[in-house]
């Protein structure tokens, strides 16, 4: 297996982009990544998209997007692992380059979510749950994560305010991110008083509905040293894992086993432990998710995730900054693009290009991308190529 590095990144602004199509969003992000890398040709392409069919009526987007990017006849494949599709697309590109099959691969993600009504959008997202045994009964994604929150509160004494602190912290970060959908600071009271969605989660506990795309260019590390225009970023580990997609089939509803299994593999691959990581971008689709993910990554002990944001540990100036980009909560969550947007932030921080939100110690970063209520998880660990 060859070492693999990221040499280019690009992303669109995230938001309700009513005048922009799925294809234009993707091509914008992809061209920016190719320009950033200084390449005008790619050998192959993977596109993460959760449900272009239900959101826009368009399937078969691998070929569509390769052609609109002016890169046909390269092979292009859509990758789907629900909300972890972007992370999985990077992993596909990583494996293709590591294997020696291709040299320059574009790994992108896109979701165009605002062409449909709120009910249709909720339905499309709910297809990432067990259709016959969860969605049939009318449970939504906020509902599933709400049940994780209730179970976490009952088991570990996590408080409603602990959840709110996650949103407050992520909005503090997103406030400084020019690509973010909701660039505003909020308070714990704002979260607690916002509209109820699925008790105990309110609207400010939930990541928004978003249009957007992101892309990254990967190539062999040896080639990166020769052709990269900016500091190449080495992928130290790329790992993926699964769990039951139905929440009720899991032994411990509060434990994200797919994330724990992917993280364990990633740490082993990189020869590192959680203490060796400087910062992380994690999948905070709902406030409770960030709490559970920090536990599964081994950043905090089981049951202690609620303290992490409240204590300031995960703030930009804390011991272990989490979601310096603003996370899904503030930056936005165009489902298939999210995993690559996390990579965009890690590379930006590692390069020291994050401007006002630049972390003081960003030598090594971890990205955790998750599908559904935790049925899929992808973990990447990266540092600047030496």
């Amino acid at each position: 297996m060859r070492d693999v590095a990221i040499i280019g990144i690009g992303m669109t602004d995230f938001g309700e982009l009513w005048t922009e199509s799925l294809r234009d969003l993707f091509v914008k992000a992809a061209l920016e990544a190719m320009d950033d890398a200084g390449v005008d040709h790619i050998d192959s392409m993977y596109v993460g998209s959760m449900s272009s069919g239900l959101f826009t009526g368009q399937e078969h987007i691998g070929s569509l997007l390769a052609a609109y990017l002016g890169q046909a006849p390269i092979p292009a494949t859509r990758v789907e692992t629900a909300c972890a599709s972007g992370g999985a697309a990077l992993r596909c590109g990583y494996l293709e380059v590591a294997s020696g099959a291709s040299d320059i691969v574009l790994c992108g993600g896109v979701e165009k979510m605002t062409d449909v009504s709120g009910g249709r959008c909720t339905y499309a997202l709910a297809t990432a749950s067990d259709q016959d045994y969860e969605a049939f009964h009318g449970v939504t994604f906020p509902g599933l994560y709400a049940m994780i929150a209730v179970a976490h509160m009952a088991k570990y004494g996590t408080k409603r305010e602990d959840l709110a602190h996650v949103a407050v912290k992520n909005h503090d970060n997103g406030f400084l991110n020019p690509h973010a959908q909701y660039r505003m600071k909020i308070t714990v009271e704002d979260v607690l008083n916002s509209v109820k969605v699925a008790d105990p989660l309110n609207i400010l506990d939930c990541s928004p509905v978003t249009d957007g795309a992101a892309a990254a260019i990967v190539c062999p590390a040896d080639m990166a040293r020769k052709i990269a225009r900016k500091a190449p970023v080495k992928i130290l580990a790329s790992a993926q894992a699964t769990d039951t997609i139905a929440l009720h089939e899991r032994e411990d509803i509060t434990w994200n086993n797919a994330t724990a299994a992917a993280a364990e593999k990633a740490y082993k691959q990189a020869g590192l432990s959680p203490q060796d990581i400087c910062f992380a971008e994690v999948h905070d689709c709902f406030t409770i998710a960030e709490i559970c993910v920090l536990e599964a990554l081994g950043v905090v002990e089981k049951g202690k995730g609620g303290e992490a944001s409240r204590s300031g540990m995960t703030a930009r100036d804390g011991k272990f900054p989490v979601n310096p980009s603003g996370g899904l909560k503030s930056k936005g969550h165009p489902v298939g693009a999210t995993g690559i947007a996390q990579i965009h932030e890690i590379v930006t921080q590692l390069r020291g290009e994050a401007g006002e939100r630049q972390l003081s110690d960003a030598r090594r970063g971890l990205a955790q991308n998750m599908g559904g209520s935790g049925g899929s998880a992808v973990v990447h660990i990266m540092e600047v190529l030496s």
Partner: protein
Amino acid sequence: MITPPLVRRNTPQRYRMEAYQCTKCGKIFFPGRLVCDRCKHREFEMVTLPEEGKVITHTVIRTPPTGFSDLSPYCVGIVEMANGVRILCQIADCEPETLAVGLPVTLEFRRVQEDGESGVLAYGYKAVPAR
């Protein structure tokens, strides 16, 4: 999605609460499956789920997906049945304030959501607080 073949296929689970027990290790699956995830055995016998259980976690859905707007807001929970099998379903005839972890419930046969485009009624199970 509520279509005649789908309703017909799910009738044993949704109408009769049929579960399947591994004949080797005894683990019970609802719905049934072809291979046991614990011992990898491939033979099962049908058992009916008990009607009694308790709520182990819960929520109140206030922004419903299509097909559920006439019910909103409604309670949903994960229920552990008396034999240890867990299911997810709506908790009907229950005020949100009275929802609690540990609440004893029984299963009833109810209409679960609005009719699908093909006009088939979406019947199935819901939990109600034990009386």
